[in-house]
């Protein structure tokens, strides 16, 4: 697993969580897909924004 991309892991996790909450909170496939995709995209997007902001923070130590 050493060569696996951190970004791909983030995408995979977001996909699973988005699909789960989409299915849990919506009754129809269409609505579940829309909500799931939105959650997954937001997770990836917000994570990238946080990562970008943290890039400028000192490492400390």
């Amino acid at each position, binding site marked *: *697993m*050493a060569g*696996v991309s*951190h970004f791909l*892991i983030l995408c*995979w*996790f977001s996909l*699973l*969580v988005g*699909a*789960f909450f989409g*299915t*849990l909170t919506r*009754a129809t496939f269409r609505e579940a897909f829309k909500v799931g995709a939105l959650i997954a995209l937001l997770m990836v997007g917000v994570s990238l924004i946080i990562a970008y902001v943290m890039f400028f923070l000192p490492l400390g130590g």
Partner: protein
Amino acid sequence: MSETKGGGKMALACLLAWVFPGGGHWFLGRRVKSVVFLVLVLMTFFTGLVMQGRVYLANPEQPLTYLATFANVALGPLDLIGRRVFYERIIYIFPSESDPNLYQEIMRLNRAKILAVTHEYGTTFVLAAGLMNILLILDVFDIGIGRKR
């Protein structure tokens, strides 16, 4: 399936949801959702195991490990697989130093897995699978009492 279930049936549905991810929804007649939940929880859990994710042991010196252990145990029998894979035995409590052999063995297994680059990610996946199953049990309860259609 919006009608209220009896107490016994509801308890059985919740128990099935704990034993088998999606089992409660299957019992309540929501077959498609049940299969989707089963696939999602299994994929999340086994992704975590493949990434060398940890299954937590309750450690009195670290109280937060009780919460993490609870999230793991929420997976039902899947948690047993995780413990067997990670610790090579079924164990829930972190051994005290008064049992040096078991303590050393658990520490050795922990150190071996922590070296994996994906260990923290894997642990997150395993915990997420357990938290998903807690939500499924609560969802089955809500459906059972008629709060959710």
